[in-house]
């Protein structure tokens, strides 16, 4: 069953991994370019914008974290998680293969958990690959990154993706087409990220826990972040399990 799930998800994972690799390399390699562009532009750039960019380009570590773990990486991997999760059950239902699958002598829990586990592993592989690419690129351009910070941020980012995967899987159990679970999972993901855009709203934004700046910079061990991300990952999965057990087809 694991092999079947891997074969089914391979193209989605490969395309997303390639896209993630390009983005992470660009994110990691463009720091010096941006910095030189900003210093060259001088007074042409408005004062307020200059301050913002200066803060962003203040250090390479901050730039890489902000570009990858807080933005591009979180976004693209969330989309991959939603795409993978939305198709897990709804994909089987829409193609009619759910009857072939559930007609076998395996429990629904095993079906759902196997599918979830394969998708979670695919996400972990893509996340680790991206982080390795980040470390290598940063080392090549002589801005070596803190391995501990990268490892902690990678794990947090993966747990964050598991929230998206779990939500998409939950909606995938409830709906019989792939589009609605995908859109709803992305909508919920945006919704839980929105409070972070408001002053002092970080504590209410799940995204701020996935992409903890303090964890990346090695300022503090992200225990609270791990607990919150873990809960965010587990709760939708448990709910999906409960619903799938009772769902009629």
């Amino acid at each position, binding site marked *: 069953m694991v092999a*079947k799930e891997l*074969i089914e998800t391979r193209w989605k994972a490969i395309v997303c991994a390639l896209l993630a690799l390009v983005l992470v390399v660009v994110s990691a390699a463009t720091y010096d370019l941006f910095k030189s562009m900003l210093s060259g532009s001088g007074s042409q750039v408005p004062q307020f914008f200059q301050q913002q960019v200066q803060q962003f380009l203040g250090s390479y570590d901050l730039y890489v974290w902000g570009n990858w773990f807080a933005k591009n990486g979180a976004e693209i991997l969330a989309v991959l998680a939603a795409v993978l999760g939305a198709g897990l059950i709804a994909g089987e239902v829409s193609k009619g293969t759910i*009857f072939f699958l559930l007609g076998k002598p395996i429990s629904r829990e095993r079906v759902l958990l196997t599918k979830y586990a394969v998708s979670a592993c695919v996400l972990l592989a893509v996340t680790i690959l991206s982080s390795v690419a980040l470390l290598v690129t940063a080392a090549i351009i002589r801005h070596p990154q803190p391995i501990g910070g990268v490892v902690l941020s990678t794990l947090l980012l993966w747990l964050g993706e598991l929230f998206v995967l779990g939500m998409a899987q939950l909606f995938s159990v409830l709906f019989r087409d792939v589009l609605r679970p995908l859109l709803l999972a992305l909508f919920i993901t945006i919704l839980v990220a929105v409070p972070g855009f408001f002053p002092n709203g970080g504590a209410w934004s799940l995204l701020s826990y996935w992409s903890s700046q303090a964890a990346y910079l090695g300022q503090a061990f992200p225990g609270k972040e791990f607990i919150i991300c873990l809960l965010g990952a587990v709760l939708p999965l448990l709910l999906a399990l409960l619903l799938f057990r009772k769902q009629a087809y």
Partner: protein
Amino acid sequence: MSDRERSLTATGSPSLLPANQQAAIDIRDLVVTYGAKRAVDGLTFTVPRGAIFGFLGPNGSGKTTTIKTLLGFRPPDKGSALVFGYDVVRQSLEVRARIGFVSETNSLYDFLTIPQLCAFCRSVSSQWDQQVVDRYLGLFGLPPREKVGRLSKGMKSQLALSLAMGSNPDLLILDEPTAGLDPLARHAFLNTLVSEVAASGKTIFFSSHILSEVEAVATWVAIIREGKLVLCDELDHLKQSRSVVKLTYVDLPKASDIEVLRRLPEVMSLAQEGRSVRLVTRGDVESLTQALRAHPYALREVEVVDLNLEDLFLEYMKESRHGREGTH
């Protein structure tokens, strides 16, 4: 087996087959609803072990819903269903371990090759015999390494049957297995079903609305309409107990004569076309034809012909409709 033991009709008389040990499927007062609609409405019947059981009914009559309930896809609202004595709700895994299922849509994983699909089935089956699958694949002449998505609809049906046999099931449930197949593919499928699967002693439960194919292979039939059982009986017994009597009159028969015929207790239905009258009868056809021949002045010919399943199906459909209208 006595008539009472053999037959379980829409009147709801209980099956006298010895408890669940003898039955492959034992359904009692089953009710399955979709919202407010009762798709299956108080269904009760038994499928004996080793039978080739044709489950008939018009579209939307509840055949697929019954099968979904047996396989645990949809829980019943009331009643019970046992497969080899296992409850389909509480012991669903044990039930499915004994069932090979071929669905109406033959929805297999198109992105897998046949060996990959076999590996998948092996990983989710309690017992798997690849040699049996290979034998069936060879029997159907299926390309052994082909991608499932490249197979024709007929080939997919054959592959689905081969895979269902791989888990060595005691019961094969087929939901409209030949729907959409051309006559040649349908013939090959049914031929294998009878000569290979049934010959190995397995119970086959298959739904269909293609009456000729049911008649060709089934030993037992049940007819369902609007979720209710109309008839359940051994096919041979059913055909022996009902006949078609064709009467040809010298002149156009009088309306009063037709009314007399219609009221005879043996006559289930009557259809008139000019000087010809067609009676579907039950019970002792010999005494009926003798009584009819006792009035030779009006009759030119009396002919008794075997009833085919299509006649029977249509009669029962009419009968149940009239019965329903009569109750209004």
